[in-house]
């Protein structure tokens, strides 16, 4: 356990602060949330600057356009802290840099790496993820979107759902059934699909939050070169599972909880009821303290998991539980914020008196969507019990 910030790190932090101070005017607006689809000139220029200084694409090898540094959690922590403190965009994020790039580094051909990693981390190519389907929600291996061979191409037909940023994306990485005779898991391939291909239609999918964070994507005779398969044909299920593990570095998610908790504290200091601040209500305050402990646990747990992953150690069941708790804590933070505001907490949609643009209700609903998404909590628990605790699978139905 060594969390000391030695001189090297203090220097790193000081340089970063100076950099942010000097250049913050060049950063795109919109705070620290990494943009997932914005290709305006300011964003691309800012990302370029960040990569040059090693503040983005930090550990991506130089030959693919990254900064080529060794992984270093403490520097990762410092980066998160300082961008958050400065309230400055941390550059381009999203499913391309966070999910596709690690997958290509592990499974892609040299040609695929050369072609896609650079443009992706620079933000020039935006990706969306095509996993879920109407009948492949928690049962992801039930993917029905299929590709038949036609010369050097695949011809894809079917439908994806819950596809974030599909309306902005240049490319999709998705699971497609290419081997109809190979059973549920063995029949899938991990395919890279240009979103401009004729036959692709993107429709926004409204959710209970009232915003369209997701899309449906329809494929009708969409031609994709067979060369766009990552890894081998029929290995898509295995590769997608690796990608899921890469899903958004865990520190960032814990950092999000910390930031959200800090906003909750501010809220509870400013909202009043009969002139008394919410934070002075002992019952609400007790809930606040419970959450603070949970946020701290999530934060240090993510540091522990990241350490293990950098050391290539297998942390066992401990690695499987992060997802289950993160969204739940976010939901509970929002729930407390709403209760602290009382009737003000149910205002929405640009109402007069609305706090923080309705962020809290949005978070309350959206975090529930996340609890459901990416494999429902029920499936997560199966995985924890079976893979993590070695409990036997349910017997197959007769």
């Amino acid at each position, binding site marked *: 356990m060594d969390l000391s910030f030695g001189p090297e790190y203090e220097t790193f932090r000081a340089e970063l602060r100076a950099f942010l101070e000097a250049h913050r005017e060049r950063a795109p607006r919109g705070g620290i949330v990494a943009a997932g689809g914005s290709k305006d000139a300011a964003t691309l220029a800012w990302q370029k600057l960040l990569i040059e200084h090693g503040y983005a694409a930090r550990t991506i090898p130089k030959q693919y356009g990254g900064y080529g540094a060794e992984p270093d959690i403490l520097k990762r922590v410092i980066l998160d802290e300082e961008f958050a403190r400065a309230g400055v965009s941390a550059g381009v994020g999203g499913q391309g840099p966070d999910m596709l790039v690690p997958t290509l580094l592990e499974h892609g051909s040299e040609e695929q790496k050369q072609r896609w990693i650079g443009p992706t981390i620079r933000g020039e190519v935006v990706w969306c993820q095509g996993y879920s389907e109407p009948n492949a*929600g*928690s049962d992801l291996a039930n993917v029905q979107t299929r590709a038949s061979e036609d010369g050097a191409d695949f011809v894809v037909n079917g439908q994806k759902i819950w596809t974030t940023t599909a309306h902005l994306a240049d490319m999709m990485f998705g699971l497609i059934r290419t081997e109809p005779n190979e059973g549920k898991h063995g029949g899938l391939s991990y395919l890279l699909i240009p979103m401009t291909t004729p036959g692709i239609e993107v429709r926004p*999918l409204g959710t*209970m939050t009232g915003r369209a964070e997701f899309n449906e994507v329809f494929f009708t005779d969409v031609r994709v070169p067979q060369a766009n398969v990552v890894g081998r044909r029929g290995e898509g299920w295995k590769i997608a599972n690796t990608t899921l593990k890469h899903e958004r570095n865990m520190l960032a998610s814990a950092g999000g909880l910390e930031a959200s908790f800090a906003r909750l504290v501010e809220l509870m200091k400013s909202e*009043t009821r009969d002139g008394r601040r919410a934070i002075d209500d002992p019952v609400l305050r007790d809930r606040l303290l419970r959450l603070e402990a949970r946020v701290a646990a999530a934060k240090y747990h993510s540091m522990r998991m990241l350490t293990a992953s950098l050391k290539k150690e297998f942390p066992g069941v401990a690695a499987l539980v992060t997802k289950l708790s993160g969204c739940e804590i976010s939901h509970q933070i929002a729930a407390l914020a709403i*209760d602290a505001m009382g009737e003000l907490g*149910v205002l929405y949609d640009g109402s007069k008196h609305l706090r923080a643009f309705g962020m809290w209700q949005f978070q309350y609903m959206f975090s529930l969507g996340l609890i*459901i998404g990416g494999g429902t909590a029920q499936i997560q628990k*199966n995985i924890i019990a079976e893979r993590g605790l070695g409990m036997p699978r349910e017997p197959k139905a007769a």
Partner: protein
Amino acid sequence: MDFALSDEQKLLEQSLRRYLAESVPATRVREIMATETAHDAKLWRDLAELGAAGVLVPEVHGGSGLALLDAALVQQSLGHAAAPAPFLATSVLGPIAFAAGTPAQQAEWLPRIAAAQTVLGAAFTELVHRRDAAGVRESNGRLDGTALFVIDAGAAAAFLVAVDRARIALVARDAAGLTATPLATIDATRRVAELRFESVAPAEWIGGAAGVPELAARVLAAGRVALAADVLGACERAIEMAVAYAKQRVQFGRPIATFQAVKHLCAEMIAELEPARSLVWYAAHAFDHRPEEAVAMSLHAKAHLAEIGTQIVRTATEVHGGIGFTSEHDLHLWFKRVGLDRQLLGGPEVVRAEGAALHGW
């Protein structure tokens, strides 16, 4: 003696549910809630014909002359349908307040309530607490200040307004100096507003300018029981939807209703709901028949239903998986309805603190 709904009550509930299922399905709810006032004059008149709008109005004034338990059953049915109807303010809080009114007030308002010829809004939040700088004060016969979170304000022709946190005034929507501003909430099936008073002459005081002791406590108690009943109905519906969906949704080659985890989520929802239903019945009954318990029971019903209701609509959404999170699917109507119910007239922590104070704890 028995602890059960009477045959008449069952009949009332059945006829309401049948009407609402046929005439106000979710598609119709969505149409009504998309209008400016979320008010459907025909639906409101139909509710009068079914005896719902005037359920609490004495027979002499054209109503059914029933008790809060009957009103709670109506509210529950409305919650079950997520029906946009100004029942809470007009048909629950209105008659309860007017019971303390003058004969003239009663003669003027109660028949119109029973016939669904008017809509009332209720500005009672201040009876619970003040948020921001809200507050309506009287001085020299004039009202000044702001009332927040006015219930059923969409199509209201007049408002019952808590003044100085104790008395209740009746103010016409078009009174000089009164401005109503809609406040958008997560739940579009009902309309909440802010009222701004600038030297408004109140049309009337309910029970005289000096106020009626206990009137504030009575309207709050009735309103809280009704909100608990609304949650009850909404949760019934959410559970019905979750169970039905689980039976037809196939994953891993079988209906998800066969998975123990899904079953247990459903079992936990209903196990919370059924005792809560008994509590709501009793709280409503106590309002008319056990006055010494009425306030305490209204607080328990409100707080308890808010807590389990929040949990149930969340669980129902989880059982649905992604589809329950879409705006296309109807489930979120009930999710949001419970969200608003939870906070109106006091969230659960607030209500429990009142309960403790009532005990002298």
